[in-house]
């Protein structure tokens, strides 16, 4: 007799994990992100060492090992964002989405499972990458007589960047369920990330002082990386958490509404 018991959200989560982990391109992107991120830090470190003797004294004094170490997150950030996007867009380009929603007609389960799988993988890979970058930087810069960062700050930075990347992947997954196209979604995400910085100088002064901090990117930085790097005054942790939660809720709600209303 047919077993009518609901397999539940756990089944969807395991299914989405199987999908994600069974693609070589996913494993390659995660591995490559870690390697290239650390390599970027190594390259900058090498450049610093090579020119160190010519640095003016005040610049040497201002040199912060930790800030330089995490330069590789530019690479990991973009790669993992694209990974989050393609995890969703490939369902549409292969037309497999029809099967996904036949197996799990409850749209909210598929959305939540994809978000959790991608965010967890992004968090772990980013933490590994950033830890690697900092370890390499400490090694490379050990010869300079600069004070090393204190351990507590290192842990906060590693976790902060990891959480930041994971939250960004939530955005990537939600947005791609709305747009369904990898190119469109990547373009929109890059616009969201760099748009404010590009447009900022052209906006009135009160915007930089009072408005900008409520945007998703700056709020996320205030939440996960307080006072890092030297940024304009942001929100306090509590306020930043509220603002980030509100932004993510908007994107998740848009994704869910799209999934429920639009034809697959």
């Amino acid at each position, binding site marked *: 007799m*047919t*077993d*009518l*018991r*609901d*397999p*539940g959200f756990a*089944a*969807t989560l*395991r*299914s*989405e994990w*199987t*999908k994600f982990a*069974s*693609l*070589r*391109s996913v494993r390659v992107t995660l591995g490559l992100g870690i390697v290239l991120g650390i390599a970027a830090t190594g390259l900058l470190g090498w450049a610093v060492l090579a020119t160190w003797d010519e640095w003016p004294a005040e610049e040497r004094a201002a040199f912060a090992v930790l800030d330089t170490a995490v330069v590789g997150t530019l690479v990991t950030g973009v790669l993992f964002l694209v990974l989050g996007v393609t995890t969703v867009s*490939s*369902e549409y380009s*292969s*037309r*497999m989405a*029809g*099967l*996904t*929603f*036949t*197996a*799990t*007609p*409850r749209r909210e389960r598929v959305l939540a499972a994809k978000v959790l799988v991608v965010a967890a993988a992004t968090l772990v890979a980013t933490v590994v990458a950033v830890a690697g970058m900092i370890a390499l930087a400490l090694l490379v810069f050990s010869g300079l007589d600069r004070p090393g960062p204190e351990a507590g700050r290192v842990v906060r930075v590693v976790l902060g960047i990891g959480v930041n990347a994971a939250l960004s992947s939530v955005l990537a997954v939600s947005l791609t369920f709305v747009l369904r196209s990898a190119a469109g979604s990547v373009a929109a995400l890059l616009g969201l990330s760099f748009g404010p910085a590009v447009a900022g100088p052209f906006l009135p002064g009160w915007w930089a002082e009072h408005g900008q901090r409520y945007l998703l990117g700056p709020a996320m930085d205030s939440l996960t990386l307080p006072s890092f790097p030297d940024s304009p005054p942001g929100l306090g942790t509590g306020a930043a958490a509220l603002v980030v939660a509100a932004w993510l809720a908007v994107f998740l709600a848009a994704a869910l509404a799209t999934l429920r*209303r*639009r*034809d*697959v």
Partner: protein
Amino acid sequence: MITVRGLTKRYGGTVAVDGVSFDVRPGVVTGFLGPNGSGKSTTMRLILGLDRPGAGTATVHGVPYRELTAPLRQVGALLDAKAVHGNRSARRHLTWLARAGGIPVRRVEEVLDQVGLTAAADRKVRGYSLGMFQRLGLAAALLGDPPTLLLDEPVNGLDPDGVRQVRRLLLRLAAEGRTVLVSSHQMAEMQETAEHVLVIGRGRIVADTTLAELTREHGGGRVLVRTPEPERLAAVLAGAGGEVLPGTDCRLDVGGLPAAAIGDAAAAAGITLHELTPSRGSLEDAFLDLVGVGVAA
């Protein structure tokens, strides 16, 4: 049991499905016939809750598909066999599907074996032939051992052996008391499997009847007869009111008389028959008669 009432779907200006109502009952294979673009796939997508109808309802076991508690164990569907990610192997593909449906992963091996894909199960599906995709799609539909099956053109691209296997499979599934809805745009394909037929033309149901009834009502009623004594039989049948066209190799093409009457007349005259077949052409005539020719605008 599938119940469809007043289902309507338009895409922009195109009305794909137009007020369609029907029931699909368990225990027999129901053929869903219609020419290209007549709305078969759209109807199936609406039943599966993939597209949202403009009007009307579709339920499976009395419940809209989106509200089924264990969809893969209740309904097996094959819609678009090539809609799989090319970089996964068949085994991995079926594994994620089994996990999503709460189906034991050992079922994957069973269905792979059932459709004859075990040897190719670890290859990336991007290298599959059309027939192999079709087999994979069938495996996916059978995974949850469901009491209801919706199969959109399942024999498309299969070799003769594959076609025969699918026919047998459909008959067996129906004999086990399952509800089986199978679409096709070829009447002949349904001839040996479907007991009941739904014919759709330009988004509307134009016939909902048994296959036998359909051929009787709409077919030209031509019957192919083969006998060692074609001249004598031609005379006998002409006398009984048949319209007889002589063919090659001791064949006669008979109109105006049902197969049973031809057999009876031959027996009464002591003539041996080597073949007595209601012609496939007549089924196709019935179909064309109902839906007209060409793709709807």
